[in-house]
């Protein structure tokens, strides 16, 4: 079976298992809303520039996204399912990409619900640059997902996994978050991507490509040593 079909089989499996309980997705969404509410006490909407609100949005995405990513490889732990996946004739790369894609879609779903909520709470007309904003969201989310998925595999057997994962991911994610924050801050206030911000777009693409390639290369070591 072709590589792409195996990726899709793994992705569909993860999505189906998650959507049946919606545990991670609901928790992540609820958490996103809670942070958005809490932030309102920190920021008085009137004197904070809307650009800064756009930056904060990525903190919400990163924090809430971790709840989804925590589950990625943890899902394989009960019943030793990971053994059966490693035993199956599927490459580590296909397994990794399938799981990453599933998490990516779940995090993206959370973000697409959180965005309008954010717009309403903070009175931001966020959709003025809709498609560029979607592009940035997709690129930023893929960066978060790739790092989150590979670290989810690294921390799969650890007792304090839920605590460990954010500590490991956020410093690593900093460049991608910075880029996404800068671009989103501009885009939600209606400023298009210009010559001085296109660097961030390049950074995001570079980050995504580099870490996807590195993860796919290293995943066999994580799975079989």
């Amino acid at each position, binding site marked *: 079976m072709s590589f792409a079909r195996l990726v899709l089989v793994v992705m569909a499996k993860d999505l189906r298992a998650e959507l*049946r309980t919606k545990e991670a997705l609901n928790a992540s969404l609820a958490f996103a809303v809670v942070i958005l509410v809490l932030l309102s006490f920190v920021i008085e909407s009137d004197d904070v520039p809307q650009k800064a609100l756009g930056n904060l949005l990525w903190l919400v995405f990163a924090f809430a996204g971790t709840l989804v990513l925590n589950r990625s490889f943890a899902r394989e732990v009960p019943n030793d399912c990971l053994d059966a*996946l490693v035993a199956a004739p599927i490459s580590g790369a296909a397994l990794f990409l399938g799981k990453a894609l599933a998490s990516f879609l779940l995090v993206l779903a959370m973000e697409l619900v959180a965005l309008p909520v954010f717009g309403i709470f903070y009175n931001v007309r966020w959709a003025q640059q809709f498609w560029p904003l979607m592009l940035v969201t997709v690129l930023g989310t893929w960066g978060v997902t790739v790092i989150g998925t590979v670290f989810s595999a690294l921390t799969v057997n650890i007792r304090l996994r839920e605590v460990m994962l954010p500590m490991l991911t956020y410093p690593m994610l900093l460049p991608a978050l910075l880029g996404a924050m800068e671009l989103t801050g501009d885009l939600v206030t209606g400023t298009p991507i210009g010559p001085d911000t296109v660097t961030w777009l390049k950074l995001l693409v570079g980050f995504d490509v580099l870490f996807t390639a590195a993860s796919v290369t290293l995943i066999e070591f994580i799975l079989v040593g």
Partner: protein
Amino acid sequence: MNAVAVEGVWKFYGDFPALRDVNLEAASGACLALIGRNGAGKTTLLRAIAGFSKTGKGVIKILGTSPREPATRRNIGFIGHGIAVYDELSARENLTLYARLYGLPDPRQTAIEWLERTGLERVRDGLVREFSRGMRQRLAVARAFLHKPSVLLLDEPFTALDDRAIAVLQSLLRDSLAEGRTIVLSTHQLREALELASDVALLVRGQVAFHGPCTPEMVADPGLVYRRHGEG
């Protein structure tokens, strides 16, 4: 050619050798029973044969190739301590998933066939988390057999099985041997294992203390190998 060949294998946890210079082989159609105390290295050896972990030294070959080759993995069936099916998916979804991963031509049909063979067709759309223990185990057996592997690796297959699951498994194993497939199984339950086994290997502290054909006197007196070759 041997179906399973383990040549001079060492496996280390840090500096501690969990397997020391293990040499074993199982011919096609043979059933090799790995016996030994807890911590003797049975699980470590089976996992290394299945290709779950790399060995420190030595070579493992399944049907003449490395167990990490995708083509080889298609021929291996593994049952470990966990049932390796997903609680949030139904029995049919689980089997269809594995049929797809193994690239079988008709995943849905294969899943239904195996649900019938393991007596689970009535609950095929029930979620695994609602299953009883015995049903879960039969599903695990179906999961490991559905791609018709020519080499079966079973880690303590009879432990924690209920009577019906043991019956299902034993009849499948007998059929498999009759069809010329190879079985390597680890167990403490000597009686169940020795009835099936054609060969026996005793592991003591990561080393092979005895490796030879299973004789009728061993079947009659399962403790014999331990007394003769073990640590008493």
